[in-house]
């Protein structure tokens, strides 16, 4: 398979079949926490995409160029957390200076991402799957786009739920979790897609 096709397939795989939220169950806390409104969920998705792309790049470099040569790969989790935390801080400062508009759009979401398991998850996945540099970065971007898709869809559903008649005992989180479960079932339908395309 040539390169563009395989990248396209990789994209489909990351966004749909191996969606971070619906099939890997990573990043569920911002998924439930910041999905009240479509507008904020888009901002959160953008911020996550931004950080996950950069985090995959840096974690790849730290892992392959420092941890592997020193044979201390068991330190990967703690090293990744260190990298991500520092990176988010740095990105926040950089954005504040260079692009105040983007900063005010992402502002409050950036610090939230430091403790987002999806970011650590993508770094660990890249390591386990043995992706090279390009695919690590692509995996970060595409998975984050999948996350964005999921959170925006969820926000749309929740906005509709606001105005519908729901039994008292199901209002709020119960119905949200049920809808999330149904969406996960729907996304499971994509799992056959990839193998048939291959």
């Amino acid at each position: 398979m040539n390169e563009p096709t395989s990248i396209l397939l990789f994209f489909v795989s990351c966004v749909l079949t191996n969606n971070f939220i619906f099939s890997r169950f990573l990043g569920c806390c911002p998924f439930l926490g910041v999905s009240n409104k479509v507008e904020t969920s888009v901002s959160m998705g953008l911020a996550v995409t931004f950080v996950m792309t950069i985090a995959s790049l840096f974690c790849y470099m730290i892992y392959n160029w420092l941890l592997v040569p020193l044979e201390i790969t068991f330190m990967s989790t703690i090293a990744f957390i260190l990298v991500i935390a520092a990176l988010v801080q740095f990105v926040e400062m950089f954005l504040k200076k260079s692009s105040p508009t983007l900063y005010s759009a992402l502002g409050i979401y950036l610090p939230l991402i430091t403790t987002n398991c999806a970011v650590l998850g993508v770094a660990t996945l890249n390591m386990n799957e043995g992706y090279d540099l390009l695919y690590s970065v692509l995996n970060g971007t595409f998975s984050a786009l999948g996350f964005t898709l999921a959170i925006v869809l969820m926000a749309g559903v929740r906005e509709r739920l606001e105005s519908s008649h729901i039994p008292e005992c199901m209002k709020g989180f119960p119905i949200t979790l049920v809808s999330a479960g149904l969406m996960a079932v729907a996304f499971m339908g994509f799992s056959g897609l990839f193998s048939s395309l291959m």
Partner: protein
Amino acid sequence: MIIVYAGLLLGVLGLVFGGVLTFAAKKFHVEVDERVNQIKECLGGANCGACGYAGCDAFAQAVVDGKAPIDGCAPAGAKGIEKIGKIMGMEANVGERLVARVICQGTHGIAKDRYVYDGYKSCAVAAGLAGGPKDCRFACLGLGDCQDKCKFDAITMENGIAHIDPDKCTACGACVKACPRSVISLMPESQNVIVRCRNSDVARAARAVCMDACIGCGRCKKECKYDAIVVENGYARIISEKCTRCGECAAVCPCKCITIE
């Protein structure tokens, strides 16, 4: 050996990141004009939006940028505006403190009801329904549109009309905009003699809908020694600059629609 590597690596990474972040904090330090924070402290702080900016922060920034006038924040009051003037090094042109006043006395029983309104509690809605629940088309409807808009808890509904507490009022003007009948207007605080009616119908018609309506008889105008009252459009109006607040007009008003606060 491995444990030494692990410790060293984390230590070095921590040091490097710490160093980079320290450097970045200096390098990417955003100069926030300290005047912005100083001005923010002088403002009303209710984010009422009466100045036309997104909130107090945006207004303070606009003042520093020279885009907003220093006296743009009504809730800051004369003292606040003076302080802002000092911060910005500009002479503040502080007028007298204004307060919002309700120009209507049509409480239940005084103003006649046209029908019993039992719908959605909003003056704007009620005003559109067959001319409003009160016979007088200039009356305060008392359903609290102004109260909803007031960020300072200055407005209460009593007996079918709005009351504004002059001590709490900051003259932000939100209620003036909210009132579908334009019953509320801003006046200088010292203007305590007020004509409480704006019914421009002829005397008979005005009297027919409200016992306290101004009938435009002109008694107050005759009584006033300072030429401070004009009778136009069927109701009396006091010219604040000429009025000495003597209160003679209130004493002679046959309709009791001139009041002294």
